[in-house]
């Protein structure tokens, strides 16, 4: 993460600019012109903005939000539902057809996917994170297969070959993420036996921890 982002005011401004850029017609229409751009670039970026924004909040505030929401699990479930929603072909079509749905997408992805995920991630611990990662990866691969194997054009707004290429991209992305996650288990780490007990305590409140169960 860029060092400047660690300063909240700068960070929020950069995120705001990125958000507006994504919402402005030139980038929005060009990303939404292809299914891959829509599903694999625009939607993840919107969620990522929410994730980073959450990390810029004061730690105490994040902890309060976590407590209010009953800890990590409810937030993860919320993320699962909200992110699955925007993977429905119907939701993609609706977002293109209706400005209201499009607005809902721009609001819900940072707020109901990125932000709660960032909150939950703080408290998940290595097992929870590994569980979320592995499940996410296998479901991404399955979703990719669904788009490849679909006997019909699932989105009225997209060509059928786009659907297939989006599907293959998802499968490849899943393989890549899995390989990366596994590789992260093999490298890094201090390997200091003395640290073994530090593992059990809550993760340190570093702002940019966002992937893999590797620690220390």
């Amino acid at each position, binding site marked *: 993460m860029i060092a400047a982002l660690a300063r909240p005011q700068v960070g929020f401004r950069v995120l705001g600019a990125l958000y507006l850029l994504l919402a402005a017609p030139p980038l929005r229409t060009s990303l939404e012109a292809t299914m891959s751009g829509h599903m694999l670039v625009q939607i993840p970026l919107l969620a990522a903005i929410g994730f980073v924004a959450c990390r810029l909040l004061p730690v105490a505030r994040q902890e309060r939000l976590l407590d209010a929401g009953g800890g990590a699990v409810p937030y993860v479930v919320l993320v699962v539902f909200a992110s699955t929603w925007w993977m429905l072909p119907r939701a993609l079509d609706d977002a293109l057809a209706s400005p209201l749905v499009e607005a809902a997408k721009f609001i819900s992805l940072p707020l109901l996917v990125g932000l709660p995920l960032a909150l939950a991630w703080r408290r998940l611990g290595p097992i929870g994170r*590994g569980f979320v990662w592995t*499940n996410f990866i296998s479901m991404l691969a399955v979703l990719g297969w669904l788009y490849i194997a679909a006997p019909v054009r699932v989105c009225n707004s997209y060509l059928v070959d786009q659907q297939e290429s989006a599907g293959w991209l998802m499968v490849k992305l899943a393989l890549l993420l899995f390989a990366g996650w596994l590789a992260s288990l093999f490298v890094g780490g201090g390997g200091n036996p003395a640290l073994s007990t530090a593992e059990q305590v809550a993760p340190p409140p570093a702002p940019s921890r966002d992937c893999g169960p590797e*620690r220390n």
Partner: protein
Amino acid sequence: MATYTYEHIPDQGAKAGVLAYLATSAVVLLLMMVFGLLMRLEQAQWISIGAIRFYELMTLHGAGMVGIAAIAGASIMWHFLRQYVDLSSRIFVANLVLFLVGVVMILGSVLLGHFHGAWTFLYPLPGKSMGLWSPGAAALFMGGLLVIGVGFLLLHLDIARALVARYGNFSRALGWPQLFGHDDGKAPPPTVVASAMVTVVNVIGLVVGASILAMMLVNLYVPEFDIDPLLAKGMIYFFGHIFINATIYMAVIGVYEILPRYTQRPWKSNKVFLASWTASTLMVMFIFPHHLLMDFAFPKWMLIMGHIIGYLNTVPILVVTGYGALMIVYRSGIRWDMGSKLLFLSLFGWAAGAMPAFIDGTITVNYVMHNTLWVPGHFHTYLLLGMVTMVFGFMYYLGKPSHEHDDHLIDRIAFWLFTSSVLGFTMSFLYSGKESVARRYAAHLPEWVPYDRIASVFAVLVIASALVFIGRFFARIGLARHDYQRAPVARSVAA
């Protein structure tokens, strides 16, 4: 070369969770053995349960045995790995709970829904059942497998967490600095190396397995989403092969831990040992095509890869472990008791069981042998005389009343009865295979029936001896919890 010295770790009693795992395995094992016997009796034409019942039993027998092999193996791994890293008891128990939930789902699917497509789901199963079972029954079965998979995923993630916490990363847990650099004699102990290997391959296998199960569930309800049958078979066997292989890699930890305690000699994690485990970590993921050698539609390179790596993978861990065990025992004056005898026998079973697979892994042999009883002959030797025997050895070790305690006569008889009847039982499979008796068939030709009858008699004897082992385990389950010395001191050390 680094020098290795024996560091004594006192024998520990089993946690309640480990005993719950073993008790579950023992009960399910007996039940599944009875199911297996019923199948043999049906083929022997001594009973008549009908084809559908036969395939239902076969489905339960297959899924159940794989399940308890994994559960029993995990209990051995967990029991010993706990000496080195900090594992979570809650997750260990959660895995067993999820396993039992999955078992109930599978039993419901088979006994109430009459699903009998086996857990290997050969195409066009499980979707196209021709009305013999409902999509709901198939979905329940696959859901049960998914639940069991989730439990094991959690268990392995916990092990991964603990290994990373202690060793920093998996490269170190597998001893790569010592393998590829200077062997300073500080490589992780064999238990850690084996656990790391199993965790890596099982997590990969489980993610692939969960993916194909999810795909088949979609296909079940929306058949328009076609699954390429070859892709499905490849993914299922990728997962299945890794998962069942991992059971023996978990159980062998019992050998690594218990035999050194008997002879006070170290099990060295030297370069050869580390190299064999690292090699198998990679190879175990690429040998699944040896299940597909007769599928000519598969890409040729895949089959050749399966053939070659299948040959290679037979060797490393098996030979290194067998040689290691001989070195530990040779002129050590080891005191043979039920625990050490069973563990030593298990290594023979593992080696003997691998040989038929080695032969069947040859493409030209595979064409004629793979769909015969030769293959059940292989995996029954490998699992019953190898994997399950390790578990029995572990059970005797845990329940041994004191290090000086002598075995009862009935246990000694049961040991020899078990050894000879398992050999008779598996040999009749292998001989039937050699005679081209088809596999997975409820009905057998009249010429084949004599082999089935011989096998049935041996199967009864196997069950009888297993009953003694398991009965003894349950009788001593109270002792198994306590910490005290179990391993008798070898004569060479005592002298």
